[in-house]
């Protein structure tokens, strides 16, 4: 083996430029693959930094009618905690914000309301002090707080447990500090007990998240199976229709990123495959040039497997060198991915190049090396000894192998290119269609009023006064408030019923996004009112605005204006009259059409935490100091949070699609380039070997055009077979891509036609240079060689 290794190095040194190109090509492809894998490993493979993380699960409310999953309401959570089988413990949590005003400029603090047993479920021990005691997990308990490690150091300055922290004007006693590992669930500054806020009796509004730990010895699959059996019983006991399902915590936290990451890994894997096919072709050409050497070695007694080993060692050396260099490139690529990681996906704080990534890089490099060397090794091992000792023998079968590699390469390039074109088309269409509101020249600022300081009427009055002051600012065209800016993250939904229609049965319940907005909201967002009107100023009766999707779904062929909707499935609960229909606005994701939506008038609800939306004449951020000043005029201790332009909101919402479109485009461009190089290499090599044949053809009367056509046709024929195979494969795999697309079918014929044309043109261009060279073959010279 050592001798093979020495000989391999000598052979590679013999053609340093070819070796360098091979190593660099592999380094780039392996580097890109390893970079993506490092993100996959960090997000999907590396266990959560909590004790026994594989035992941690999440229970989700499942609405079979609409195939939706979300967190539970408090009554549901209590049912599950009492009745769900196989759980050692289950806790609930919910994120809110506090205002911290005792230390300089007002601050917004993210707090996590946690139920009894939360820290125990996670298996954490306090860094300082203690966690909550059972008597602190009761309604109206004394306000106590556990600080996160970062908040404790950064803001509280390492305050001793027992100290007081005033949040929302309420003095909380710091009882302990939780290690940073708790932020795996969600990044929070402080933890307070959830039960202090009880009772919460509304079963239909879903506002909690859960985390639980399986009993020892219970497998995940068994727990899922047991819960599936128990879920209808639990629902029936509560006379409810929603079921419950169980997913591993890691999947729940990072699962959203899995399809994107796996698609990117598959795409970069295709690039690696194309690069490997390219190099296999180079190795095959080299092996063809060494036929006589192999024949001599076999004549001297070398066995077929021995020769194959020698070739495999040579390609493995190239691949491992490429892999080592690729690992260095991955360090840089990994940082690029971390920078480009969309904030709307589960957080990817770090992607260490740990043993998993190292092992992946090593195995893939070695596998690539073996793959590259396989065909030449087989040829060397099986070659005809007698023919090998003759000049120019055996070229035909290797020609077929090279042709097969070009077909494979073209097919892989088509597969990647069609995916990239579909995603790009989809992305472009998504941006062209937009969110449904105008994102330019607008700003959104979250104003979380502390409920402890502001009662319902005070909140309404605060926002009325704020809107009046902000609207009067020079450069402000309109202002409004809303519970959540569309596409800004988060969702509040629930069912509704039409007053005057029979009550809905379980299977026909209707659900809608629910948003609370002020009278000026639609103008501030520039959401057109397509029928009726927006909210009236100081409307005396309860009135609502619905979107077009709800009008289409619930009132087909009817005029909804003047009709009444009730919250929940039974009319009589907060009935409100529809006064207008607003144009549809994307709610959660830019690539998902709007679902039914109901807007409630803010002054009739009195929410404490609202987004202020300001439409401006010029740069919206330039008005931020003035807006903050108006808020401070009303309450100097009131902080603001989530300051964003609406363009940033839309940008954030399109982040995953943008990342996918950018990376797929880059991969597809690399694939196209590699395919072009591969086709060029094979055609050029073939022309070089066929100079005499071309000379003969010219002697027989072939014109330059005949030769050009012949070489182009042969280059194109192989590519076209590859294009056909690639399109067939792409169509077969189309459904895997469907969930990433918007407004374009995964089997869009125009896309495939364009891709076929693009690859054919690439193949023609790649074949053109060698074809032109072929036309310059001098028959007198090529035939004189005999």
């Amino acid at each position, binding site marked *: 083996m050592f001798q093979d290794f020495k000989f391999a190095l000598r052979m590679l040194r013999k053609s340093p430029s070819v070796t360098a190109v091979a190593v660099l090509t592999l380094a780039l492809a392996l580097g890109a693959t390893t970079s993506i894998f490092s993100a996959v490993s960090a997000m999907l493979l590396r266990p959560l930094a909590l004790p026994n993380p594989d035992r941690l699960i999440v229970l989700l409310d499942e609405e079979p009618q609409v195939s939706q999953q979300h967190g539970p309401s408090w009554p549901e959570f209590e049912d599950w905690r009492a009745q769900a089988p196989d759980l050692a413990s289950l806790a609930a949590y919910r994120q809110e914000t506090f205002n911290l005003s005792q230390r300089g400029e007002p601050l917004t603090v993210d707090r996590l309301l946690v139920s009894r047993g939360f820290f125990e479920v996670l298996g954490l021990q306090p860094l300082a002090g203690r966690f909550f005691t059972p008597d602190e997990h009761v309604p109206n308990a004394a306000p106590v707080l556990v600080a996160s490690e970062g908040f404790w150091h950064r803001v509280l300055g390492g305050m001793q447990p027992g100290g007081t922290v005033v949040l929302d004007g309420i003095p909380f006693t710091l009882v302990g500090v939780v290690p940073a590992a708790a932020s795996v669930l969600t990044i929070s500054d402080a933890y307070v007990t959830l039960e202090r806020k009880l009772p919460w009796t509304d079963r239909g509004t879903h506002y909690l998240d859960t985390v639980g730990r399986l009993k020892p010895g219970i497998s995940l699959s068994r727990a899922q199976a047991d819960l599936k059996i128990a879920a209808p019983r639990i629902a029936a006991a509560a006379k409810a229709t929603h079921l419950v399902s169980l997913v591993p915590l890691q999947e729940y936290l990072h699962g959203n990123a899995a399809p994107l990451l796996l698609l990117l890994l598959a795409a970069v894997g295709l690039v690696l495959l194309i690069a490997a096919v390219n190099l296999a072709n180079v190795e095959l050409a080299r092996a063809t040039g060494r036929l006589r050497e192999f024949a001599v070695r076999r004549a001297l007694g070398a066995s077929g497997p021995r020769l194959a080993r020698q070739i495999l060692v040579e390609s493995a050396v190239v691949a491992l060198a490429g892999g080592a260099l690729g690992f260095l490139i991955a360090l840089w690529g990994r940082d690029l991915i971390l920078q480009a990681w969309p904030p709307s996906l589960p957080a990817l704080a770090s992607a260490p190049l740990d043993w998993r990534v190292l092992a992946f890089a090593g195995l893939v490099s070695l596998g690539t090396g073996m793959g590259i060397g396989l065909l030449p090794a087989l040829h060397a091992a099986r070659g005809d000894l007698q023919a090998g000792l003759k000049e120019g023998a055996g070229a*035909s079968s290797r020609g077929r192998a090279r042709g097969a590699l070009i077909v494979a390469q073209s097919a892989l390039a088509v597969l990647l290119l069609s995916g990239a074109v579909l995603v790009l088309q989809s992305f472009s269409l998504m941006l062209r269609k937009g969110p449904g509101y105008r994102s330019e020249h607008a700003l959104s600022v979250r104003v979380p009023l502390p409920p402890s300081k502001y009662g319902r009427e005070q909140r309404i009055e605060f926002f009325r006064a704020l809107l009046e002051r902000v609207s009067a600012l020079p450069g402000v065209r309109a202002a409004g408030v809303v519970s959540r800016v569309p596409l800004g993250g988060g969702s509040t939904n629930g069912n509704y019923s039409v007053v005057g229609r029979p009550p809905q049965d379980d299977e026909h319940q209707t659900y809608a996004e629910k948003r609370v907005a002020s009278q000026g909201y639609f103008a501030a967002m520039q959401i057109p009112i397509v029928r009726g009107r927006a909210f009236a100023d100081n409307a005396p009766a309860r009135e609502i605005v619905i979107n077009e999707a709800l009008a289409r779904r619930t009132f087909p062929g009817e005029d909804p204006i003047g009709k009444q909707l009730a919250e929940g499935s039974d009319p009589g609960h907060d009935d409100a009259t529809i006064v207008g229909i607003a144009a549809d606005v994307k709610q959660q994701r830019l690539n998902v059409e709007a679902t039914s939506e109901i807007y409630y008038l803010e002054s009739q609800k009195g929410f404490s935490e609202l987004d202020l939306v300001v439409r401006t004449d010029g740069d919206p951020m330039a008005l931020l100091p003035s807006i903050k000043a108006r808020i401070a005029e009303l309450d100097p201790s009131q902080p603001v949070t989530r300051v964003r332009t609406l363009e940033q909101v839309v940008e954030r919402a399109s982040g995953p699609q943008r990342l996918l479109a950018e990376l797929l485009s880059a991969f597809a461009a690399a694939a196209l380039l590699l395919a072009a190089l591969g086709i060029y290499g094979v055609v050029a090599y073939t022309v070089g070997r066929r100079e*005499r*044949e071309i000379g*003969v*053809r*010219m*002697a*027989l*009367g*072939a*014109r*330059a*055009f*005949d030769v050009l056509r012949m070489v182009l046709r042969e280059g194109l024929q192989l590519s076209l077979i590859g294009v056909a195979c690639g399109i067939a494969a792409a169509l077969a795999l189309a459904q895997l891509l469907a969930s990433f697309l918007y407004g374009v079918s995964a089997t869009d014929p125009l896309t495939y036609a364009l891709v076929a044309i693009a690859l054919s043109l690439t193949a023609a261009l790649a074949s053109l240079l060698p074809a032109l060279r072929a036309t310059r073959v*001098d*028959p*007198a010279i090529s*035939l*004189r060689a*005999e």
Partner: protein
Amino acid sequence: MSDALIRMQEIEKVFLTDEVETHALSNIHLEVKKGEWLSIMGPSGSGKTTLLAILGLLDTATDGEYLLDDKPVRDLPPSGRAHVRNRHIGFIFQSFNLIGDLTVAENVELPLTYRGMPPAERNKRVEEALARVGMSHRARHMPGQLSGGQQQRVAVARAVAGDPLILLADEPTGNLDSKNGQTVMKLLSELHQSGSTLIMVTHDPAYARLATRTVSLFDGRIVEESGTSVA
């Protein structure tokens, strides 16, 4: 109008390599009449193959005049030269030069394809040519499946299929054993007897004697000419 099919006057061929000027042919005067069989002899490096290449329009003379069928061909553009080769010249090479990926019939058909001949006529001509050289039974075989003698017979069929004005043979027996060599020479004799014009380069005086006329080259010049020019 002259009765010469080929007329060469003061043909010169100079190769320039780096700063060295090599005179491959000097002051060549040659006439070949229709139906004549001319044999070109000479030692290695005497310019035989260069002369044949110029005769076959594979190469161009540096100077001099070359009339083929009374038409000047020296300054034809590449496409014009390809046209003349295809219509008026048939080549027979020492190493056969059949194309390994084409069948015997396809090899014979190749020059007719370049001529743009309709398929039916091509097929007819291929059949006739193969029959003429006794290789009809091997039409679907690949060249690699044939012996050297058989391959050269196919090469002769390819050369005559287009019914050229002149056949150029460069050492047609050079890669064959004596038995196969004699078979090929017999074939060439038959072609000559049926009216074909042949120019053949050979080392073998015995084969050269089959020709009606022989010219000997030495250092790029015609140093001896024997035999009778036929009308």
